[in-house]
Every structure is written in structure tokens, then in C-alpha cells.
């Protein structure tokens, strides 16, 4: 599942890179900071990126997840601080939604 989620995220970044002047590096992608100090997205771009990942997750697992949720906001370490944390957050959301066997 982790690999599937990671692929969705990398695909979303690759799509964004087609229009970016300064490409987002996907080397060491798990440590890539998405938002905050050294983050690759500014606020509005993050909103769009999360929508794209949500859609990818829905297509892949047939489960609707909300990434900018109250739960995401309340976590001590933001799921947007790195791709690794976002993958873990999505994995947990899918597990709770019963999509673990997908």
C-alpha cells in the first residue's frame, strides 16, 4: 500500500513539474518537505496538490480521503512536513476506512 501511495504522490509531483520553471526534485522524495520552512508548495499550491493526491487515492483505492482535515491539522507533526509523513497519514486513513486489503 505504501508503494501505491508513494506512486500517487510522485505522479502528482511529476504532473506539476511539467509546468514549473523550477522543478521539484523527486530524489530522496520521502524526505521532501511539502509545506512550511523549506517546503516546495506555497499555501494555494498545496491546496491544489492535496486535491490531486486525494483524487489519485480515490481512483486507486476507491476510498474518499480528506487530507487537509481537522485530524491532519491537529497532529503534532504536520503530515505536510514531509512526503514520508503524508504517506503514513494516508495509509492510516485508508486503514481506518477499511481499505487495508486493497
Amino acid at each position, binding site marked *: 500500500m505504501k508503494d501505491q501511495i508513494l506512486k500517487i504522490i510522485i505522479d502528482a509531483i511529476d504532473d506539476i513539474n*511539467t509546468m514549473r520553471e523550477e522543478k521539484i526534485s523527486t530524489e530522496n522524495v520521502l524526505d521532501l518537505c511539502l509545506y512550511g520552512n523549506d517546503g516546495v508548495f506555497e499555501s494555494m499550491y*498545496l491546496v491544489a496538490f492535496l486535491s490531486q493526491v486525494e483524487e489519485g487515492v480515490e481512483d486507486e483505492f476507491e476510498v474518499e480521503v480528506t487530507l*487537509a482535515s481537522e485530524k491532519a491539522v491537529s497532529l503534532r507533526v504536520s503530515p505536510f512536513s514531509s512526503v514520508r509523513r503524508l504517506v503514513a497519514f494516508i495509509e492510516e486513513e485508508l486503514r481506518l476506512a477499511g481499505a487495508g486489503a486493497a
Partner: protein
Amino acid sequence: MARSKVSIIGGGPAGSVAALTLNKLGHDVAIYERARFPRYRLGESLLPGTMSILSRLGLQEKIEAQNYVRKPSATFLWGQDQAPWTFSFAAPKVAPWVYDHAVQVKREEFDQLLLEEAKSRGVTVLEEATVTDVDLSRPDGVSVTVRRGKETTTYESDFVIDAGGSGGPLVRKLGARKYDEFYKNFAVWSYFRKEDPFKGDLKGTTYSITFEDGWVWMIPIKDDLYSVGLVVDRSKSAEVREMGSDEFYRSTLAKCTQATDLLAGAEQVDEVRIVHDWSYDTDVFSADRYFLCGDAACFTDPLFSQGVHLASQSAVSAAAAIDRITHHEEERDTVHAWYNRTYRAAYEQYHEFLASFYTFASFTEPDSEFWRKRRITESDDDRLSRKQWFDKLVGNGQDESAPSVADFRDRAATMISIGKHQRPELSDDFCEEELNPARVRWISDLTKRLNRITRLQWTGDKVLLKPHYRVEPLSFRLEQREILANQDGLDLAQYSMDDEVRQVFQDLAEEEFGYKTLVNRLGSVGRQELSTQIVLRLMEAGLLTGYDKTGERVVVQGRLHFGGVGVEYEV
């Protein structure tokens, strides 16, 4: 290659940046500057967008060599008993020209650096050269009369740029200046010797601190100097006459205890200076063979340190416009229309921001003439009758669920909440990282609101592509592009669009699908990253309206934005 001869009045940032841009574009430029540089100027605090322009003009290394104070943010102690609020310039580098900081400069050094650079690149620079007349009557060119000492000479050129500041000779001759009833201030300032009290993320920030009679700026500049100025209502001028400027400055600054706390132990090392600080603009920013740039065209209250940026931005735009007209004479009118529109929009954005912030603070400070005059509570406030953004706000007020003047204060409050410090006072414990939870919460709220939109309605039936222009960030050429519009003339000028995007919105106009579907379809035509921003801007432009599944309108409060910060620059 066609080449124009351009006369520029004034060698400040607007004049020098216009000259550097025109020189880069291959034109023949002369600057006529009244003073001999270096000369003193106020306005030490810059914005990242100015750094970006100068860097693209090839000045990055020279600016870095000056060791200016790095400015990472602007910090506001805005409103009585409010926690400090920081507007951070941190921005992801989505393009090579995006800057995450600005600098604080001594303007006499900075302005001279720009002018010397123009000179070294072949621009003719005449100092102590006062322009006494500009003749625009000939259809094939302009004449500029210049006095140097006892000699008076008339120079011919194809175009003239008035970058001569608030006393610009052309704008005076045109008689086109309109003062703004909202911001009739004056500023009184001096300099203090004081090491920056902070070593962490506040180091280098500009402070703006409200008190009962107005607000105070504190700008750290080189050599442990702080520029410290008061912005007060013009009604205080009688007190200045009575007390003298030194005593007025001392006694008024003493009322702003948060500023005096920061200055504790600091020594005042310069004289007290005073200047009228009345906001103004001009009916027309350009026409025929002339362009007005910087303070010659307009000036706004300095709260957001936007002066040099508006000057630089307008200078690049004027230079690019002259270049375009030189090569495409047939586009003269549309190029002028573009210049006037984009410059006015940039100016008005600051006004909207200012009005919102002043209104917010006016409800927290003790009642005083300064704050009463700067509060907006009525939709028929005729001081704002010339402001397009206010018309839009008030016009929308006819729809009960739409934004209205009543929401005005909240817009600033939302922005402030995103940057609010965790401690109620300034502290070196502050770090920009602590702002992230509030930002993420705001992103979450925005996302929830957008996701509620199950039906988006396009205003009108037709989605059109309309010709517009854009300054290419690296070449500085003004290029034609297309933007989205409807048949009634509403449009979205910020983003270049193509027929694929137009078709997505035409489908939306016919099918009225929701936000998520729109974002998905914009993604399929290569607009993934910008999709949310496009939706919000279209809503602001009055081209899109969102409704939830019950049919209720969903009002999405976008960010208050202005040029020179963030990741999207106008030039």
C-alpha cells in the same frame, strides 16, 4: 532592430530601473536627474519582488556586496493588546526569480548603486540637471528642456518617462493628480543607534506598531541604525507648529510604548525630519509618448514598504511598453491600456490591503482622529468612490450571502491570525516555524469550503479568450497572451490561458460542475498547481460563483494579496 530614444526624468529607483530595462532591450536612454548623487531619501525597506527585478537585470552580485540588512518579513504590533503578527516572505522557489527575502537599505547608497550601474551600461546620466519643461505637442516625438547651471538645453526623444518623484515636472504640467481623502498623513522621523535586539527569525524585520495617534515604523539598517518614524494624521500639524518638530517627535514617540521598549537605551543620532505623506494617484498613467512611473504617478501610505516596488514594477512595465510600441506601433493604444490597467490594479491592491488593516486596528485603538478617519464601516463611504475594489465589494453586497463591507475587518483579521505569534510580546523565541499550524488550519478551512462547492456558475454564457500582455520575466519583452473573459467584459488578467483551458470553462458554463471536477479538469490541461488559485481569482473577478448541495452560495475568502511578495510577481 527598431530602437527608440527615451528621456527619463529622475534618477531614483524608478528612473534607474526603467533605464536599465530599456538599455537591456536595446534602446537609447538618457536620465536627467535634478540632484547630485548620493542624496538622502526616505523609504529604506524593500520587498522581495524588487530583489527579483534587480536580480533579473543582473544586479544581484552588486547588491549582495553591499551587505544590506536582510529583511525576512514585516512584523506588526497592530492594534492595542494584540499579539505580534509577522508577514513572512518565506516562499518556495517555484521559479528561479522568486525571492524569499528583501533588504533594508540606505537609500542614498542604494539609489546611487542603481544609477551608477545604468551609467556603466551606457545610459547617459546628467546629474544636477533640472527638467523645466516637457513638450508633448509633436506627434512624432517629445522635447525635454533641461537646465544645468546657467545653461538650458532642449533634448529630443521618441518617448519620455516621468520618474521624477512626487514633484515630477510632467505630472505637474498635466495637472492630473488626485489626492486620496483616506490617507492624509504626515511622517516625522529620525535615526537611532541600536543593535538589532533580536538574533533569531525577527532579525532584520520591519516593525509597524500602532498607538493612539497613528503608527510607528522601525527599520533596522546598516551600521546598527534604526529608522524610526511616526505616521500621524495631518490634523497634528498644528501641534508640530506649536511645539517644533523635535519636541513633537519626542513626545509623540513616547506615547508608543511598544516602540520605546524596543528602543530602550538607544541614542538618537540624526535630526528630526518631516514630510507630508498624502496618498495620491493620477487619472492617466500613460498616453501617446509619455509614461509616469513611481511616485510621479502615485503614492500610497507606506505601511507595507511598497514604494520602491511600485516604482520598480512600473518602471519595468513602462520600459517593456515602450519597447513593444517601438516594434508594433499599431498596438500603441492597447499597450497604453494595459499599462494603465495593470499599474492601477497594483496600486489599488495596496489600498485594499491598507484599508482593511486600518479598519481592523481602528476598532482596537483608543478613539482618536487618526483611527476614526481610517475606519470603513459604511458602504456609501464616498472617500472610496474612485476605488474599483471597493465598488466590487459594495456592489456584491446586494447579495446577502456575498462578501460585504461588514466583512471588511475580518479580512485583515484572517490574515493576522495566520501570522500571529504564540507569545503575546516580541521575543527571540519566535520562529517562523511556529506559524505553520495556523497556516495549515487556514488551508484546511479553505479546502473544506472549496470542497463544499458542488456547483460552480460562470457569469454569462460565453467563455472567451481575450488578448492581453505580459512582461516576460527574463527577456523583459512585453508579449501578447490571452486571458479568460466573458462577453460582458469581466476577465482574469493574472494568468495566460489557452483554448484547452477555455474549453474547460466553457464546459463548466454549460454543465455547472463542482470544484473538485473543475480542479481535476484543469489538471488534465496542465494547470494542476495553479488550479485553486485560478478558481479563487475567478471568484474575486466576479466570473465564478460557487454553491453547495443545498443551493446556498459558498463565499470563499481568498487572501488579501499585493504585488512584490509570494511566488507570483506582476513583472
